[in-house]
């Protein structure tokens, strides 16, 4: 296991390095440089030259790249144009909100996927299975922002049940700790459901397919032959083995979770990384945009690493391969 861990750590590190390199060169391939995006603001050529010097943009590309990697290795993502603060600080402030939203959305996603996936697999090719297939097709064909908008329309305007935006009410500071937690939960429901449903389609299909495959195995027939109840066969013998590959899927869905979170946060004015990236776009804060992209890539690579390690822990065939 130690050897496997080491190998995976090294390859994750190399992957991250490659990702950072791609981001660096993609951005520098773009015509102009980061100060180009400041055009149209009142900025004199001298000021622009000063900025270029300040951010090291007047040096050769190779030197910029090495300096940038060096700073990155020290955890330094640079200074935001618009906020004039370290980007790592800004990201660290916004991340908890995104983390909360993503966690809640994962609960919704897997709740829906497991419930419907198991129901569909148990009644394979029945009416319920067909209906659930249609639901999964519908879910995976929606633009993520549209689910959010429709939820706002239905549950905040037509039937005003839940708040449509932000993380807290205006008077949240005056509430008791419990009141504040409840207030937060109320604000969390719509964005979490929107993001969770957006991701639930593929997961649901996966659960169904995996469970159907496992239920055809010999040991399931043995379990049935032993006279175990069908419920026990499905939930204990079937599901346990069907869900192991789900760990891998979880890691692979990380990027789409992040992408969806950006749009969902913007729609619900949720003060996380997504909202931050919108602010970065609007203020043309190019170093912040690159910082957020890199941070996202870091999360994806870490997610993959954790998933591989979990997979190895669950399945000895993986780590010995």
């Amino acid at each position: 296991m130690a050897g496997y861990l080491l190998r995976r750590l090294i390859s994750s590190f190399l992957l991250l390095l490659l990702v950072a390199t791609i981001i660096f060169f993609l951005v520098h391939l773009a015509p102009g440089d980061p100060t180009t995006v400041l055009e149209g603001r009142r900025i004199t050529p001298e000021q622009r030259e000063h900025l270029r010097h300040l951010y090291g943009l007047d040096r050769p590309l190779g030197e910029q790249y090495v300096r940038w990697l060096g700073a990155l290795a020290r955890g330094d993502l640079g200074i935001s144009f618009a906020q004039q603060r370290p980007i790592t600080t800004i990201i660290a402030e916004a991340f908890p909100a995104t983390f909360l939203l993503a966690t809640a959305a994962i609960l919704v996603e897997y709740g829906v996927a497991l419930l419907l996936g198991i129901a569909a697999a148990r009644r394979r090719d029945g009416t319920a299975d067909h209906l659930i297939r249609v639901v999964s097709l519908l879910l995976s064909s929606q633009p993520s922002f549209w689910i959010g908008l429709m939820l706002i329309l239905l549950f905040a305007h037509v039937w005003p049940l839940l708040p449509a935006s932000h993380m807290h009410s205006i008077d949240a500071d005056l509430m008791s700790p419990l009141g504040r937690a409840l207030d937060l939960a109320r604000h969390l429901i719509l964005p979490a459901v929107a993001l969770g449903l957006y991701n639930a389609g593929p997961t649901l299909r996966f659960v169904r397919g995996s469970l159907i495959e496992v239920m055809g195995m010999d040991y399931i027939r043995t379990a049935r032959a032993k006279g175990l109840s069908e419920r026990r066969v499905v939930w204990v013998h079937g599901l346990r083995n069907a869900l192991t590959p789900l760990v891998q899927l979880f890691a692979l869905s990380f990027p789409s979770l992040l992408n969806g979170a950006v749009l969902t946060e913007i729609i619900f004015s949720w003060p996380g990384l997504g909202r931050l990236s919108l602010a970065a776009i609007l203020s043309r804060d190019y170093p912040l945009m690159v910082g957020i992209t890199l941070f996202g890539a870091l999360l994806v690579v870490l997610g993959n690493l954790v998933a591989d390690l979990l997979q190895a822990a669950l399945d000895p065939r993986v780590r010995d391969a």
Partner: protein
Amino acid sequence: MRSRSLLWGGVLAGLLALVSAAAPWLAQNDPDEQLDPAAASYRPPGTRLEAVRLADGTWRLADRIERTPDGLRIERLGRTEVLPAGRVLNLTPDGVADHRFYLLGSDKFGRDLWARMLWGGRISLAAGLLAAVLSLVLGVAIGSAAALGGRRIDTVLMRIVDAFLSLPYIPLLVTLSALFRPDTVALVFILAASAWMTISRLVRAELLSLKEREFILAAHAIGLGPFAVFWRHLLPNAFTPVLIQSMLLVGQLILAESGLSFLGMGVQPPTATWGNLAAEGRESISWAWWLATFPGAAISIAVIAFNLLGDGLRDALDPRTR
């Protein structure tokens, strides 16, 4: 269920293609026309307004008109106005000759949502399709190079694929489009750059398993050159799964384009796409529900069509899933 996916997907995609092709005839109004923004803004679906052409060349859009012996009485913005016959250019014996009908409602500037969606759909669909074709070309090229180019090339290319798969593409696309300020063509390239990886992985896997098969070895043995083997034997046999994946990709790319346009980083207004129409509708969701609802629905119908086509093709062509 199997052939039904294909059938429904084909029907939906065919309808979308037909409607897009017929946009100039289906849309009665010009998508950018703003005759009388004050009177026509935020009108719900199914509104009909009478279009009164005044002598000074401007238009008035009225809720109701009544022909009087010496002119016209119009009801506009809650007020009644009497216009002498000499001021109205398109007067007829029982009213005026023109009207505007808003099938799906109107936007802030009184533009016709139905017309804007018809014209915008052309761009959204074309961008999705073109980006998918481009991803297909790029994916096949890189996947083939990895599978057939030797071990070192394979390793390098596959690591690059891994890296691209780890990029969170929405922030990346947004950063790129902020820097490039793309027109529609550049947008297609940017979209394709985010999507070719699945194709190249698939092509590589198919070719790796194919190239050791007897019929390929036989083709080499009878003296066919490597290019002929690739073009006539390897590629056609790897094509089915690739075709299926590309269908699914069209849907994903339409979604990606709409997401970018929603963020204001795709095709720029006043050119409409489904994505930027939905984005414009967002601010008015509480009082003009139709503006975000219909474009969003159009996007999902298109994505459903291509997902069904992909699924249907898979079921029909790929025996392994049966």
